[in-house]
């Protein structure tokens, strides 16, 4: 019976070179890999042996010779850095180092440890953050909206004087294009005068077949003030009186030239 050892589940498939390529979205870079390796040591990152970690990482790179070049390059930079770190840690610190003001191996190791610890901290907190109750998954907003608070729009009407004047101008302009209508004058027609004369004569006191004499001028409407309409009224009344006399409804007398003209109604003989 074949027996396969369980892979430690916290060391992902990334440790096989092929899987590393496939898992790029999960394991994005050398730091991530280092962190995975560091976790594998199952110790507090503060107490981690940077030397041991570095050796493991370099072993991994040795092992992963078939990595795609551009991916490998990323890993090799870290590998080179770690190799440098390893040499610093292994070699006894020389007095020259201080003079060159280079970071000691310990300082570099400390920096790396911090970097790993901070990254781990962020990965853990990201998981914690997404464990919070989330809107739309654990917590819900109101599902149905039957009405919103109604915001009515109150118009503030805008117009300036120019608008009003140009509007009035356009009305005035429009008036000029009105349909042509012959001008009419407020003058009394002969027909109107005839009607007026016969109506008013009918109301005069009568003596036998005739009414009393009345001055033709007195039949002119009193409200005619304008000289032209007054004259036209008088002319129409005179024409109408001649017409009525001709029909035998009326008698006319005048004492002399330019004297007042008198009229009186007269029933026709045949009536």
């Amino acid at each position, binding site marked *: 019976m074949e027996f396969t050892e369980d892979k430690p589940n916290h060391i992902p498939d990334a440790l096989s070179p092929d899987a590393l390529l496939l898992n790029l979205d999960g394991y994005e870079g050398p730091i991530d890999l280092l962190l995975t390796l560091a976790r594998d040591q199952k110790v507090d990152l503060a107490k981690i042996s940077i030397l041991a970690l570095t050796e493991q990482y370099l072993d991994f790179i040795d092992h992963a010779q078939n990595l795609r070049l551009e991916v490998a390059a990323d890993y090799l930079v870290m590998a080179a850095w770690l190799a440098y770190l390893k040499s610093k840690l292994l070699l006894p610190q020389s007095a020259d180092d201080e003079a060159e003001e280079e970071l000691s191996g310990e300082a570099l190791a400390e920096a790396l440890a911090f970097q790993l610890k901070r990254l781990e901290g962020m990965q853990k907190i990201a998981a914690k953050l997404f464990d919070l109750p989330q809107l739309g998954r654990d917590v*819900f*907003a*109101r*599902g*149905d909206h*039957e*009405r919103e*608070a*109604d*915001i*009515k*729009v*109150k*118009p*503030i*009407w*805008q*117009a*300036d*004087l120019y*608008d*009003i*004047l*140009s*509007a*009035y*101008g*356009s*009305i*005035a*302009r*429009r*008036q*000029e*294009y*009105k*349909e042509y*209508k012959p001008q009419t004058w407020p003058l009394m027609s002969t027909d109107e005068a005839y009607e007026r004369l016969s109506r008013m004569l009918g109301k005069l006191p009568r003596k036998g077949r005739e009414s009393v004499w009345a001055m033709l001028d007195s039949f002119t409407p009193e409200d005619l003030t304008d000289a032209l309409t007054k004259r036209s009224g008088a002319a129409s009344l005179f024409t109408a009186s001649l017409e009525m006399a001709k029909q035998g409804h009326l008698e006319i007398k005048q004492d002399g030239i330019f004297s007042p003209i008198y009229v009186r109604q007269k029933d026709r003989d045949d009536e």
Partner: protein
Amino acid sequence: MNNETQADDLRILEALIFASDKPLSLSDIMKWFSRVDEKYVAGLLASLRQDYDGRGIELCDHGGEWSFRTNADVAAELDMEVEVERKLSRAAQETLAIIAYHQPLTRAEIENIRGVATGKGTLDLLMEANWVKPGRRRETPGRPLTWVTTTGFLSHFGLESVTDLPGLDDLKSAGLLDRRPAVQTVPMSGELFDESGEDAHDE
């Protein structure tokens, strides 16, 4: 069923109805309360409705479907007015101009001058803008209402008085009476309007 369980059930029911995107019937709700009977859930609904009684939100039962709704008596308070600037329409500009130049005049007279009927809305709008107001009734048959401009009109348009409005000659010299091809309906003549019947809808 102890009290604590019932309190929890109430909370679940409350959250459920709130989060649902549509009103829930009792049988909908029962999917969440399969371990109890309908009578119990109906009791929960009644109790929840009681909790919200008189609040700004109410638990409503419309035809056996339950939902939270804003209380009708505060709904009116939620409505708000926002002021937005709007350009006065041409019809309203003309109507306002005519009232300004010819006041006081009746609506029929405005229509005679404009040559088109004036919608009631136009005068309402000008009144709302506080530019015109009803004046005295004309003592002619039908006693039509006349329209005049307000002091709000004068202050908005920066006029001391309506007599400051430029005359037709001024307008002509300012180029406001320039002839342009006028494509408009032939205005109706004034006599077609029956003065007595108009403005029957005057308020």
